C-alpha cells in the first residue's frame, strides 16, 4: 500500500460514506465533501517528492493480482506524465465543491457523491498501467459525469448527457476489442510489459494488425479529446453541464484522451502512429481553426468556451504528433495549462450565470463598472487563455508552434492563425460582456466576487502566473518522461538524435524568460 493507493481510494471511500449521509442536511454534506477533497489534495501533494526524484521512471508502484485468469492485475504507478494530471484533478475537485456551494441546492447528497466518484475514476485513469484496469477506470469516470450533466445541467441537459455517454461508450467499446486482441496475442494486459514485448519484437504484430489496433485505440481517445470531426458531443456536454461538471470535463476529462494517446497509443503502435501522423495533424489543425471560427460566432458564453477547447486541444494533438521533444513537452504542458485556464474560464462564466441567470453574451454589458474585481480576474484569465507571454498558455503554445515549424512550416502557419483567432473571439467576448453600457438587469443583479468565490479562483490565478514564469517547476519532470516515450516512437536508427536534444528545450525556455 503506497501513498498513491491512498490518493486513489480515498475519494472512493468518500463516495460510499457520502451516500450514507442524511439527505436533507446540505451543510453537513458540503462540509464533508470539501473536507474529503481537501484531504485528498493534501495527501496528493506528498506524491510530488517521490516522483520528482526520478521523473523518467515509474514510482510508487503497486502491482498485485486482481483476477487470476485472465491475468488482470491491479498495477498502478506514477511518473512525470501522470503526476501533474493527478494533482490537477485533486486540486480541481475541492474547487468544484466551492463553486457549487450555493448553486447546487437540489439533491446535493447525490451531486457531491458523484463528484467524488468522478475524482476516483479520473485519478484511476491517470495511474493505471494495466490496460484492463485502465479501461475499467475509463468507463467508471463516465457514469458520474453522465449524472452530473443529466441531473443538474441546463435546459437541454438530457440530450447532452445521453449524447456524451453514447459517443464515449462507442469509442471505448472498440478500444475494448483492441485490448482483448492484444491480450489474446500476448497473454498480458500490462502496459509496460506489452511495450517491452513490442519493442523487443517478442510480440510481432503485422503492420495491418497494428494499424487497425492503433485505430481502435485512437478512435476511443480522439472522441474524448475531441479531435475534429468527432467533437460534436463537446459543445452540448460543456454547454449544458452545471459549472462544476463543465470544469471537470474541460480541465480533466478531455486530458484523458490526450494522456492516453501519449501513454498507450505511441508506445504500443509506434510505426502506425508515425504513419498516421500527417493525417492526424491535418485534422488537429482543422480543429484549431474550425473551433476558433465557430467560437467566434457563439452567442452563448459557455458554448464559446467549449469551442475554444476544441481549438486548444488541437494544439495538444499537433504537439504530440510532431514527435519532437519540444512538441511533446509543449503538448503535455498545454494539457495542464488548458486545465487551469479553461477551468478558470468556466468557473467565471458560472459566476456570471449565478448572478444574471443567463449565459447569452447579449444579456450582459458593462459588468466592469459594477463588478470590477470579477472583471479583472476574468480579463487575466482571458489573457492567459489567448497565450499572453508571462502567463501559462504562452509556453505551451510557443513550444508546440516551434516544433511544428521544425516539422513543416505550413503546420506552424495554420496553427498560428488559430492563436490569432483565439485572441479575437476571447477579447470580443470580454468587450461585449464587461465594457460598454450597463443594462439595468446587470446593474441590479451583478455584484462582485465573494470570499468563497475568491477562494476558488485564487489557486488557479496563482498557477496561471506560476506556470507562465516558473516553468522549471514543471517542465523538467515532463521532459524526462517524454524522452522515454520518444525513444519508443522514433524509427530505429534515429534514437540518438532524440536523446541528444533531450534535456535542452526546458532550459531554453527558462533562459528565454
Amino acid at each position, binding site marked *: 500500500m503506497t501513498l498513491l493507493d491512498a490518493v486513489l481510494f480515498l475519494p472512493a471511500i468518500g463516495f460510499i460514506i457520502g451516500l450514507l449521509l442524511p439527505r436533507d442536511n446540505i451543510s453537513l454534506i458540503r462540509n464533508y465533501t470539501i473536507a474529503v477533497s481537501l484531504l485528498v489534495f493534501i495527501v496528493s501533494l506528498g506524491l510530488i517528492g517521490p516522483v520528482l526524484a526520478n521523473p523518467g521512471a515509474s514510482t510508487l508502484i503497486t502491482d498485485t493480482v486482481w*483476477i487470476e485468469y485472465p491475468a488482470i492485475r491491479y498495477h498502478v504507478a506514477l511518473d512525470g506524465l501522470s503526476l501533474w494530471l493527478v494533482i490537477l484533478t485533486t486540486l480541481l475537485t475541492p474547487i468544484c465543491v466551492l463553486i457549487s456551494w450555493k448553486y447546487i441546492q437540489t439533491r446535493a447528497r447525490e451531486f457531491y457523491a458523484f463528484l467524488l466518484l468522478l475524482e476516483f475514476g479520473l485519478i484511476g485513469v491517470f495511474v493505471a498501467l494495466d490496460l484492463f484496469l485502465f479501461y475499467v477506470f475509463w468507463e467508471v469516470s463516465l457514469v458520474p459525469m453522465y*449524472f452530473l450533466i443529466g441531473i443538474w445541467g441546463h435546459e437541454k441537459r*438530457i440530450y447532452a448527457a445521453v449524447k456524451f455517454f453514447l459517443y464515449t461508450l462507442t469509442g471505448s467499446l472498440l478500444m475494448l476489442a483492441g485490448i482483448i486482441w492484444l491480450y489474446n496475442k500476448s497473454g498480458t494486459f500490462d502496459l509496460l510489459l506489452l511495450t517491452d514485448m513490442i519493442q523487443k519484437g517478442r510480440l510481432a504484430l503485422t503492420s495491418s494488425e497494428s494499424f487497425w489496433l492503433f485505430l481502435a485505440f485512437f478512435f476511443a481517445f480522439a472522441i474524448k479529446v475531441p479531435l475534429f470531426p468527432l467533437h460534436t458531443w463537446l459543445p452540448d456536454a460543456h454547454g449544458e453541464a452545471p459549472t462544476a461538471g463543465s470544469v471537470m470535463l474541460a480541465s480533466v476529462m478531455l486530458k484523458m484522451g490526450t494522456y492516453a494517446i501519449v501513454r498507450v497509443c505511441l508506445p504500443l503502435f509506434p510505426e502506425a502512429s508515425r504513419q498516421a501522423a500527417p493525417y492526424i495533424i491535418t485534422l488537429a489543425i482543422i480543429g484549431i481553426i474550425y473551433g476558433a471560427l465557430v467560437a467566434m460566432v457563439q452567442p452563448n458564453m459557455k458554448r464559446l468556451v467549449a469551442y475554444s477547447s476544441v481549438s486548444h486541444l488541437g494544439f495538444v494533438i499537433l504537439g504530440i504528433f510532431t514527435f519532437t521533444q519540444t512538441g511533446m513537452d509543449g503538448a503535455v504542458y498545454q494539457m495542464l495549462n488548458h486545465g487551469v485556464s479553461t477551468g478558470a474560464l468556466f468557473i467565471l462564466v458560472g459566476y456570471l450565470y449565478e448572478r444574471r441567470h443567463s449565459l447569452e453574451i447579449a444579456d450582459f454589458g458593462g459588468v466592469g463598472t459594477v463588478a470590477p474585481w470579477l472583471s479583472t480576474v476574468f480579463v487575466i484569465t482571458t489573457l492567459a487563455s489567448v497565450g499572453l507571454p508571462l502567463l501559462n498558455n504562452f509556453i505551451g503554445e510557443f513550444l508546440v508552434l516551434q516544433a511544428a515549424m521544425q516539422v513543416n512550416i505550413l503546420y506552424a502557419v495554420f496553427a498560428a492563425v488559430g492563436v490569432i483567432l483565439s485572441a479575437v473571439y476571447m477579447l470580443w467576448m470580454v468587450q461585449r460582456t464587461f465594457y460598454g453600457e450597463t443594462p439595468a438587469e446587470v446593474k441590479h443583479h451583478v455584484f462582485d466576487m465573494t470570499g468563497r468565490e475568491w477562494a476558488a479562483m485564487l489557486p488557479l490565478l496563482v498557477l496561471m502566473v506560476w506556470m507562465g514564469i516558473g516553468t522549471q517547476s514543471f517542465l523538467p519532470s515532463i521532459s524526462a518522461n517524454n524522452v522515454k516515450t520518444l525513444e519508443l516512437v522514433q524509427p530505429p536508427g534515429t534514437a540518438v538524435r532524440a536523446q541528444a536534444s533531450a534535456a535542452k528545450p526546458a532550459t531554453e525556455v527558462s533562459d528565454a524568460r
Partner: protein
Amino acid sequence: MPASYIPTAADLMRLSPDLLLTVGGTLMMVIEPLTGAARKSRMAIIAALLMAAAIVLSLLAYLDPGSSFSGMLTVDGFSTFFRILFYGCGLLTVLASIDYFKRERGEESGEYYALLVFSVVGQSLMASANELVLLFIGLEISSISGYILAGYIRDDKRNNESALKYFLLGSFATAFMLYGVAWIYGLTGSTNLDTVRRAILGGTIDQSQSMLMIATVLIFIGLAFKVAAAPFHIWAPDVYQGAPSPVSGFLSSGPKAAAFAMMLRIACSAFYPMRAQWEPLLWATALATMIVGNFAALRQTNIKRMLAYSSIAHAGYILVAVTAQSETGVAAIMFYLATYALMTVGVFAAVTLVASKGERFVEIDDFAGLSQSHPFLALILAVFLFSLIGIPLTGGFFAKFYVFKAALDANLTWLTILGLLNSAVAAFYYLRVLVVMYMKPVPESAEAIVPPGIAIRFTLLASAAGTLYLGIFPSAVLDFAGKAAQLVR
C-alpha cells in the same frame, strides 16, 4: 450396457435434488386444498426451503460426480453449475412473488409455487441429461409449467394472451425439436449423446451427412425458439409483457439458461465433430438476434416489452460465444447466464414493485422521478441497468468481456466488432430508463409504492449484491465455470 435396472445409491444421490423437488412439489399440490386461506403463505416458505435444500443436495451430489441411470444422467461441474443457477433463480423468484400475490389476489397460492418447483426440476434435467429423450422430457416439464405460470392470473386479459402465445409457439418449437430427435435416432440408432457422437465420428453415417445436417437444424430451431433467437423470437415480447412480472423475470432467466445449457450439451458433445457446419448458422443467428433485439428495444415504451427485446439481444451476445465453440466460450456463456439471471430477476422484481396493483405502471415514463421518491430502489435498479449496459464493476461487464474475448480467441473478429457496436446501441434504451428515473421530476399523478415486504427486498438486495460481486471479484465463478467447461466433451 449393464442391464441393472435397480438404481444404486449413487444413482439416487445424483438425482436427489430433483427427486426432492418433485416429491416436494407434488406434496404441495396435495396439501394446497387442505390448508386454510390464512395458512397458505406457508406454501411460499416451503417452496423456498425446497429450493435451498436442492442447492445443498446438488453440491453434495457433486462430491461424487459421474453418470448414472445407465448413462442417461450426468452429474459434472457443468450440470452442477446450472442446477445451482436454476435453484437459485427459483428461490429468488419465489421470494419476489410473495408480495405480488398478496397485492394482486389478496392471498397466497400454493399451486403457483408448486409449478415453479416443477419448472425448475425440468430445467435441472435439461442441464444434466445426457440423452436426447430425457432432454426433451426436461424441456417439456419446464415449458408446460412455464405456460401455466405465464397465464396464472386467469381473469387478466394480458395473462391469457401471454399464456396462449407462449403455449402455441412453444409447442410448435418442441415439435421441431422432437422431429429432429427422431431423425437422429433413425440415423444413429441411439439417442444417447455419447453414442451419437461415436456414430458421427466413426463415420457409420457418413453417406447421410445432409440428413444429419437436417436433423441438427431441426433440433437447433427448437432450441432457438426456446432461447428466443431471431427469427424465432416473435413470442418473447408478448409473453414477457403479458405475464406477471415475477414470472417474466423467471422465464427470461431459468428456462432460457436451461435451453442454452441444453444447446451447449448437444453442440459440444454429440455434434462437436460437426462444428464447422454449425458455425455459419450460429454466426448468422447470433448477429441477427443481437440486431433485432437491440433495434426493436429502442422503440419500446413499455418497460416489460423493452426488457423482453433486451433479453433477445442478450441471447444474441451469448450466441456469439456459442459460435466460438471453445472451452473459453462455454465458460463465458456459463458466467454470462449466471450474471444475466441475477440482473433480470432483479430488474423484474423492481418492475413488480413499481407496477403496483393490476400492473398499471409499466410504461417507462411511469418510472419518472423514482430516484427522488424511492432513492434506494432507484439505486438498485440503476445497478442492474448499468450491468445490462456492461459498465465495469458490474457483472454484466465481465460477462460481455468474456464472451467477446472467447469470440476473438476463435477469430470471430467481425462478429465481435458488430457485437460491441450493438452493445453501444443497447446503451441507449437502458439509458432512457435511467434518464427517466434520475433526470425527470416526479409526476403529480404518481402513486406511492406499497412498502415492499422483506422477501422481495431480499431478492432485490441479493441480486444487486451478486451483480456487484461478479463485477469486482469474478474469479470464483469463472474458475468454476472454466473447470466445468472442460468436462463437457
